[in-house]
């Protein structure tokens, strides 16, 4: 089982049966639904507590009509965090390192938010294309720039997540390859590379959580503008 550097990014297939659906849906077993107990076990209590804290934090600045999006954004958060952190384990496939999944999520959600804003309060939504306090002369250029920035948002959202995860995973692969190769040639350098790998792994763990949170936070910001 010799691995090339890009084998981890291939959609998983076993005997020509695609496993990507299982890779995406199987982690949901880790999050059981409401139980018939009043006091749950530790894992359920921690999941409930963390999710309620995160959701209340994200939805603090959003007004009441926007709270209809709570279920969608909280489940999105859990999805991204689970996919990212599960991808930290060796020999796993990270679905969120694929542009297809991230662009699907980002594009659909961004478009939903913008259309919602345009339909319910079109003037207010269009008003965001001209930031406050800008001098009157710059209005035409500013509107063009703001429109471009508006349409770049889904691309930015999707590509940010993909690039972060792909880059992180790739760096880890490279550093661990270097460590493995140097282990027989220059052991001391291998130790240095190993330390670098260790720090990288810590960074990747942080990035996994942060990128998921940033994705959901930015969506909530776009929602705040438009709802």
């Amino acid at each position, binding site marked *: *089982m*010799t*691995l090339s550097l890009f084998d981890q990014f291939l959609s998983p297939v076993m005997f020509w049966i695609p496993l990507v659906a299982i890779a995406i849906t199987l982690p949901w*077993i880790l999050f*059981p639904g409401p139980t*018939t*107990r*009043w*006091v*749950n*076990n*530790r894992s359920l*209590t*921690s999941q409930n*507590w963390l999710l309620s804290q995160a959701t209340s934090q994200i939805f603090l600045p959003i007004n009441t009509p926007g709270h209809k999006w709570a279920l969608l954004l909280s489940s999105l958060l859990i999805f991204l965090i689970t996919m990212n952190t599960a991808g*930290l*384990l*060796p*020999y796993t496939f990270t679905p969120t390192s694929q542009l297809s999944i991230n662009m699907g999520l980002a594009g659909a959600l961004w478009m939903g938010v913008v259309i919602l804003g345009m339909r319910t309060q079109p003037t207010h939504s269009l008003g965001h294309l001209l930031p406050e306090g800008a001098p009157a002369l710059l209005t035409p250029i500013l509107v063009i720039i703001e429109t471009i920035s508006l349409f770049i948002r889904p691309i930015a959202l999707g590509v940010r997540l993909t690039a972060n995860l792909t880059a992180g995973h790739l760096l*880890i*692969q490279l550093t*661990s*390859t270097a*460590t*493995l190769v140097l*282990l027989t040639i220059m052991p001391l350098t291998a130790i240095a590379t*190993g330390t670098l*790998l*260790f720090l990288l*792994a*810590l960074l990747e*763990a942080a990035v996994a959580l942060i990128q998921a949170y940033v994705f959901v936070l930015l969506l909530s910001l776009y929602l705040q503008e438009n709802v």
Partner: protein
Amino acid sequence: MLSRLVFLSANSLRSSGLIGAGLVQASRSLQTSSQRLAPVPPLPEHGGKVRHGLIPEELFEFLYPKTGVTGPYMLGTGLIVYLLSKELYVINHETIYAICIGTIIVYGVKKYGATVAAFIDSINEEKVAKAQVAKDSHISFLTEAIENEKKEQWRVEGRGMLFDAKRNNVAMLLETNYRERQHMVTNEVKRRLDYQIALQHLNRRLQQEHMINWVEKNVISSITPQQEKESIAKCIADLKVLAKTTQAKAAA
């Protein structure tokens, strides 16, 4: 976790026609979750015992009779060596990374595991404590109510004594009043009778005086002058005799 899958799949199997029902019955020994939802079945206090965080204790107990304490460890070592020697598991860059991330995870769990567990337990404890406070306050309120009720019942027992005392009081008042009035009646009657007696005495006295006066008057008027002279002479003679006898006595 897998038992949950079995239970869910059992549900879907049950509805999938002829073979489904047979499969459910045949696999009933494998279904570990409870088959009823009410009353809520009790949960075990602690999870299954695990050695080294991954391997269930049941494996060690299973192998102990034949291979003793070191059996499972030999099995593990043998497995790993077999996989490596036959190159079923190839050491590649992911192995280095696996060692790395394994170290991080184990270190994280060992260092922060107890703290996180204590925090989560505290969340649950708070929830239970709130309910306990409500329950305790309700129980104490009811106990107090019972005490008050008993006190009221005791008070009711004393009510008879209170009424007796009041009844006595009223009876005494009535008695006193009656006696006063009786006293007054007696006094009045006595006054009237005294008056009648005084009247009678007066009558009698007047009669007596009148009679005495009449008798004296008649006697005096009946005394003739001659009689008067004779009686005076007699008196003088008596007096002389008396004087003589007295002188005689004095001289003797």
